[in-house]
């Protein structure tokens, strides 16, 4: 009896929800949105949310491919000049027209946002001069050939000159200046609690399926799932792996998942001639030299990891074994690279050849609140290493502690992750594997200090090639050099999962963004 009653209540509640709020939708987000100023904080959750209100010249489809946004077309005129044709008849939310002046204003504002903890100037810095040909044609001059300019422009949201002049970050947060061209208009921003948007009736891209969209910040994953189960929200992002099995068997809900641009990998500290921190002989005595400088040791430590087991047991299928920085099919990836095959016997042999027949001891360091199941992955790797005679201890810590120490190279073996925002392999290779030379923007995040002159040469040449097809072929070649040499140990690509109530369909995005534009009613 009780069960029937309960079922009846659920049905009635569901009907009431569909009847009353057919055009309104609520979405549960994991991470807080720190500002409504699109140029204040270069942070994925902010960039994702602000795409509803502000648009860039170039947009990305769910697979990360560039597509026309406020610009209809773009092309390089010569090695140092790019020309963008702007979309005509686009209006900001206040009715004022969008022209090249707004683009100029935006690019001037980006490097000058006070107190910005992470600026968008990275994307606008290569531009040394802007030329407005007519209100709908604009040219960007760069000092050096800059092939990633279109990809950079996909990260810079265009604001209105009329409303943005003299506006501070606080004016954007209050909504006064939060006036863009996007499919949704600003209604309310309550930091760390909720953001409310309403449809922009004059949107150039056509009518949106939702009248209002409410984003709720539900950082606790159990609370987020409960909100979906109770019908308080119709979609949540980042479904915790432990709830995926339950939700996928429940007819009232849908899961949408896709492999993302984030790779989980290991950097091996090769900065020193002698042994790196926390790497010793098994009896605790110091090693003669740095074992990680030997390609055979790096390869042994890579093939000793059973990636399939990690992905099935720990990640519950929510990861794909990795062979490089981005999954197959993304620009600049190589088809010839396959995830290293699990082979403990070969690993032991390689260690013996390198002069460590009895292995050695190391400590695996990793964060415990940054990546999906990060601490568990570190523990699994340690167990695999015990099978090849390497004694591995595990030490994980909150990311607030971890990343500062990792950057100071206080660890020997570091578990890390990297999301490639440009969606092509070149930028990741450049930042993580090129020889460390931050003054020239090379190897900025190369915490392993891996250095390979042959690879550097091929990569540098590739990054200066303007022709897309040729450049990506060269980047793929560079990737083959560096991953056959095990410059770093790729573990897996994370999958992201969104949960929706039945009747809603989400087109899962490789950049992990949660966009109301990609959420559709399934009927």
């Amino acid at each position, binding site marked *: 009896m009780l069960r029937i009653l309960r079922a009846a209540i659920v049905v009635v509640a569901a009907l009431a929800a569909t009847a009353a709020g057919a055009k309104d939708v609520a979405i549960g987000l994991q991470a807080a949105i720190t500002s409504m100023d699109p140029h204040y904080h270069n942070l994925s959750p902010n960039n994702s949310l602000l795409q509803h209100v502000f648009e860039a010249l170039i947009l990305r489809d769910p697979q990360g491919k560039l597509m026309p946004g406020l610009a209809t077309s773009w092309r390089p005129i010569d090695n140092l000049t790019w020309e963008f044709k702007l979309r005509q008849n686009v209006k900001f939310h206040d009715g004022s027209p969008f022209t090249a002046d707004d683009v100029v204003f935006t690019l001037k504002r980006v490097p000058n946002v006070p107190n910005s*903890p992470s600026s968008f100037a990275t994307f606008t810095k290569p531009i040394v001069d802007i030329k407005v040909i007519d209100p709908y044609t604009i040219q960007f001059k760069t000092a050096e050939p800059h092939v990633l300019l279109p990809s950079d422009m996909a990260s810079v949201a265009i604001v209105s000159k009329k409303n943005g002049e003299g506006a501070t970050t606080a004016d954007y947060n209050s909504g006064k200046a939060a006036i863009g061209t996007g499919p949704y208009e600003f209604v309310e921003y309550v930091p760390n*609690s909720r953001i409310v948007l309403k449809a922009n009736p004059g949107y150039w891209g056509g009518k949106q399926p939702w009248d209002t969209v409410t984003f709720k910040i539900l950082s606790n994953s159990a609370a987020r799932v409960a909100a979906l189960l109770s019908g308080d929200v119709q979609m949540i992002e980042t479904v915790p792996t432990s709830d995926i099995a339950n939700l996928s068997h429940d007819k009232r809900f849908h899961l949408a998942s896709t492999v993302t641009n984030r790779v989980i990998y290991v950097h091996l500290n090769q900065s020193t001639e002698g042994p790196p921190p926390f790497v010793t002989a098994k009896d605790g005595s110091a090693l003669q030299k740095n074992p990680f400088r030997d390609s055979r040791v790096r390869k042994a430590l890579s093939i000793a990891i059973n990636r399939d087991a990690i992905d099935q047991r720990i990640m519950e299928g929510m990861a794909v074994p990795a062979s490089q920085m981005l999954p197959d099919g993304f620009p600049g990836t190589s088809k010839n690279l396959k995830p290293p095959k699990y082979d403990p016997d070969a690993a032991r042999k390689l260690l013996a050849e390198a002069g460590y027949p009895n292995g050695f001891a190391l400590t695996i360091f990793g964060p415990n609140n940054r990546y999906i199941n990060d601490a568990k992955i570190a523990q699994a790797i340690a167990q695999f290493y015990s099978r090849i005679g390497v004694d591995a201890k595990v030490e994980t810590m909150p990311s607030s502690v971890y990343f500062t120490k990792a950057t100071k190279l206080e660890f020997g073996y570091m578990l890390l992750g990297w999301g490639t925002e440009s969606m092509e392999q070149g930028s990741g290779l450049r930042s993580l594997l090129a020889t460390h030379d931050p003054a020239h923007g090379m190897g900025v995040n190369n915490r392993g200090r891996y250095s390979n002159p042959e690879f550097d040469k091929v990569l540098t040449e590739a990054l200066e090639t303007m022709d897309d097809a040729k450049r990506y072929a060269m980047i793929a070649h560079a990737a083959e050099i560096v991953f056959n040499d095990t410059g770093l140990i790729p573990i897996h690509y994370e999958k992201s999962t969104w949960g929706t109530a039945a009747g809603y369909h989400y087109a899962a995005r490789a950049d992990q963004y949660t966009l109301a534009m990609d959420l559709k009613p399934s009927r």
Partner: protein
Amino acid sequence: MVAYALRRLGQSFLVLVAMSLLVFVGVYAIGNPVELLVNPQADAIERARATAALGLDKPLAEQFLVFLRGALHADLGHSFVYNVPAIQLVLQRLPATLELAFCATVLAIALGIPLGLVAGLRPKSLVGRTIMAGSILGFSLPTFWVGLVLIMVFSVELGWLPPNGRGETVLLFGVPVSFLTVDGLKHLAMPALNLALFKLALLIRLTRAGAREALLQDYVRFARAKGLSASRVIGVHVLKNILIPIVTVIGLELGSVIAFAIVTESIFAWPGTGKLLIDSINQLDRPVIVAYLMVIVLIFVVINFAVDVLYSLLDPRVRLGGATAGAH
């Protein structure tokens, strides 16, 4: 009384300075906020710019002096993450936490003292035993688990109460409160109950123990022998005499409820200061951590002061202010 208040004030000021110094050194020892704030794809120039923009390029001692100078002008600095005055961020969220804490405390008092009295007066009865067994559950069940069970039962299964967030608010003396609207009460019910549960169990046990002890005292027997009514014996002779330890505990617990409502706030996505503190610690947002702790220290000072005053009202033998007491 005035001298007493002044001395209290001076002590609290020293506590505030010492506490902010601790936070400065602590955050400095944990890590570099720029590592977490700056986009990983940024280059070295961008990192240097962000470090300078947040004032983190100066030596620690100088950073602390800059902070002290600002604090004297009532400026506790801007949040690294949100770029708004840190104190504003805390004060915006304080009403939500205070409301939750007060509702939980009122709930705990309103249920705890009567239930504790019943259990103390009839320790052997079925009712008394049930209350005591229930209080053990209140003590031993972890808050986060109870919170999730409440959500599963009342939101997911029954659909009676919303699972998260704060409801509609109205202004009361300029402060947004939600307990005056139906929607607000619906949102408030589960988090308040969840937060109250532990205090409730504590008050039941305290009241019961106090009542049992008082009932054996001579003055209670004497009052009974005098033929006073049962309600007067319990209400005046028993209750008033066991109230001092209870008031102390309520005062202490109120402070800790405000400061540590974090678990409940994060499970119910309650937009209060506890959640803000956790997020700020994870992001090493030092100005917010300092501002939050300053406010909490202040609240503790005020509550302790209020408890002292209450003592003197409840027990005429207690006098405030030590040496100056003779003047009264």
